[in-house]
């Protein structure tokens, strides 16, 4: 006999306050819940024979990527197409040496073509804020400098919620290059807002100043961080960090902080291992752990599309372009 489940609770809010998604820092817990609930509905679309709904038909979304990214860009593109939006990918190859047109000018030129939404990834923290002040389009932050990567945190939260049915009260350990990580910042904001207990772990050289003020427990002992953890999130450690004298060597980093099977055993038996990707196998995470039974890394990728569909849908609605104000 087939049964039908329906979830009848009405969400506390039915829309997002801001025209943009610039970061988790400005979101209310109710808004985060709305995004996750909407993503839940969107996820089902991926299992249909026709993976498309007409919700954003006729809307133009520009993926403006100043930093190369296959994963995030593809995820956004699929999300946009599944909502029937017209997508435009602009990949701007820049290096700090090549100056070229300013972001402000690029934005103004784009504005003239009236995109409904711009998904921006940029190497400078605050680039999305700048764009949001210049453009009337809705701006979605796909990663700005070391500031935030809100859709990543949302898809991480969605993945956790699917497994654990909640976020409140969970112990989440985040390990890695905390100083340079925008994923870290977004996750800290989100998890603390939703009532999780966040531990952050890394060498002091890679710890942001005043980290306690973010409402997390910092430690340089990875064993303490993962003890009893419900979720372990690994962050990428980059080769360049050796050059900045942040860590003596990647080999040493792995020995002190790397997520090995032995360390995973200190966590809860049903721990989730997460990583935003791309992974450095053997640096922050052992291959056995990345491919092991606790890893939900591939689910994160799948959930990314649903979460981004939810964000696009929630931001695209309402005000007509002309009347935005």
């Amino acid at each position, binding site marked *: 006999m087939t049964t039908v489940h329906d979830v009848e609770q009405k969400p506390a809010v039915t829309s997002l306050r801001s025209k943009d998604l610039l970061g988790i820092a400005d979101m209310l817990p109710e808004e985060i819940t709305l995004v996750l609930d909407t993503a839940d509905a969107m996820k089902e679309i991926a299992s249909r024979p026709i993976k498309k709904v007409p919700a954003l038909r006729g809307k133009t979304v520009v993926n403006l990527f100043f930093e190369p990214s296959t994963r995030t860009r593809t995820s956004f593109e699929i999300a946009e197409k599944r909502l029937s939006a017209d997508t435009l990918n602009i990949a701007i190859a820049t290096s700090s040496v090549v100056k070229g047109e300013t972001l402000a000018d690029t934005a103004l030129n784009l504005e003239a073509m009236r995109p409904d939404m711009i998904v921006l990834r940029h190497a*400078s*923290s*605050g680039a999305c804020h*700048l764009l949001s002040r210049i453009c009337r389009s809705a701006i979605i932050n796909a990663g700005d400098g070391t500031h935030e990567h809100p859709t990543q945190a949302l898809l991480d939260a969605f993945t956790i919620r699917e497994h654990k049915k909640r976020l409140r009260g969970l112990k989440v350990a985040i390990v890695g290059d905390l100083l340079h990580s925008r994923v870290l910042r977004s996750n800290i904001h989100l998890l603390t807002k939703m009532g999780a207990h966040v531990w952050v772990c890394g060498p002091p050289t890679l710890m942001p100043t*005043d980290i306690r003020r*973010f409402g997390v427990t910092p430690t340089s002992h990875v064993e303490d961080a993962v003890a009893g953890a419900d979720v372990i999130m690994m962050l990428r450690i980059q080769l360049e960090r050796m050059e900045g004298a942040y860590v003596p060597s990647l080999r040493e980093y792995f020995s002190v902080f790397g997520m090995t099977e032995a360390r995973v055993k200190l966590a809860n038996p049903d721990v989730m291992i997460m990583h935003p990707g791309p992974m450095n196998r053997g640096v922050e995470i052992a291959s056995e752990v990345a491919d092991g039974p606790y890893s939900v890394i591939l689910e994160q990728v799948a959930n990314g599309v649903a979460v981004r569909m939810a964000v696009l849908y929630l931001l695209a609605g309402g005000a007509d372009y002309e009347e935005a104000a």
Partner: protein
Amino acid sequence: MKRLLKGGRVVDPANGIDGVRDVLIDGDRIARIGTDLPVDGATVVEIPDGLVICPGLIDMHVHLREPGQEHKETIASGTAAAVAGGFTAVACMPNTNPVNDDANVTAYILAKAREANLARVYPIGAVSRSSKGELLADIGDLRKAGCVAITDDGHPVATAILLRRALEYAGMFDMPVIEHCEDPSLKGDGVAHEGYFAATLGLRGMPGACEALGVERGVLLSELTGSAFHVAHMSARASLRAVRKGKEAGVRITCEVAPHHFTLTDEMLATPLAYDTNTKMNPPLREAEDRDAMLAGIADGTVDAIATDHAPHHYDEKKVEFDRAPFGIIGLETAVSLAFDRLVHAGRVRLSRLIELMSVNPARILKVTGGTLSEGAPADITILAPDLKVRVEAAKLRSRSKNTPFDGWELRGGVAATIVGGRPLFTNPETRMSF
């Protein structure tokens, strides 16, 4: 021509005067100060109630940008902004294009200043050629051409040995070395004060220790050489500590603080406008304890001068991502109001101390005339309006650039008039002063 400024409150700390006096100006000099002076053919200027006559204010740290960056500011627009801000004289920094590292550039600057004929301009020359930190500039020539001090401002003198030599050499001419104190390796590619707000916003930080390291170096070398060392734009409490210890040990060290460093904190990076590039300067806005330390140092006498570090940048240059924007904000036209509002009216310093900070001490440090209303002195006079309600409107400022974080601020205290060499160059229509 003779002018008699009648019935105003005169505050001249150098001469111990604080009371109602008449001031007689004859030509470009102060002829007499006294009570009930006879008119004797002078044009009488009645000073309205509530105004204060003091020695002309001197801003010892200003970037006039000419030669080379006239799109940001020119000597003409900069000196116009200066007199509107109550300053009768400014000392201008050498990081122009070309750098003021030789007598020709100095002469050019002085010629432009004469042409503008507004605030006096005292050029500060470079320590090293092109400020590259390799070879000393021709300091003697610079001195002869009219420079009053040397600095490689924009960055610290490249090495301790070069700073030592500069101190020794400039000491010969009794010129102070002014230093942008900083350790470049600690600074790295930082763009904001290393603290909670920079961490939240994902901005690379530079800690207060970075500036303090430079101050400590300067104190030690000043002690070693016996020459005068001046800390430019001090912002960190650790720097203040180092200055205090140096002074206690009798080292010839002086320091200045800019109004934004005694008013603002790094919280402004995030609110009201996140990533506002008008909150980006070097040294950066620091945390509340540093700001409070600056206030304490101003009150207890450790801080010698208030100087604006007026750094104009064109609108287009600031309308970029935070980490790509140039450092600096303007300050000439907001300094007096901020000083009144945050120091005098807040009860932290008395008016006479303010005048020491903005006139007496800058004149003393740079060894230029000014800072007093003595008879026979040049008639460089600022008439202040301590209770004037001022609303900062960036668009109306006389500086060519409008990069200020204070737009829209309402402050109490302003300038009524600015007189340079006996000529009234600025009169504020809101104070009913007229010449």
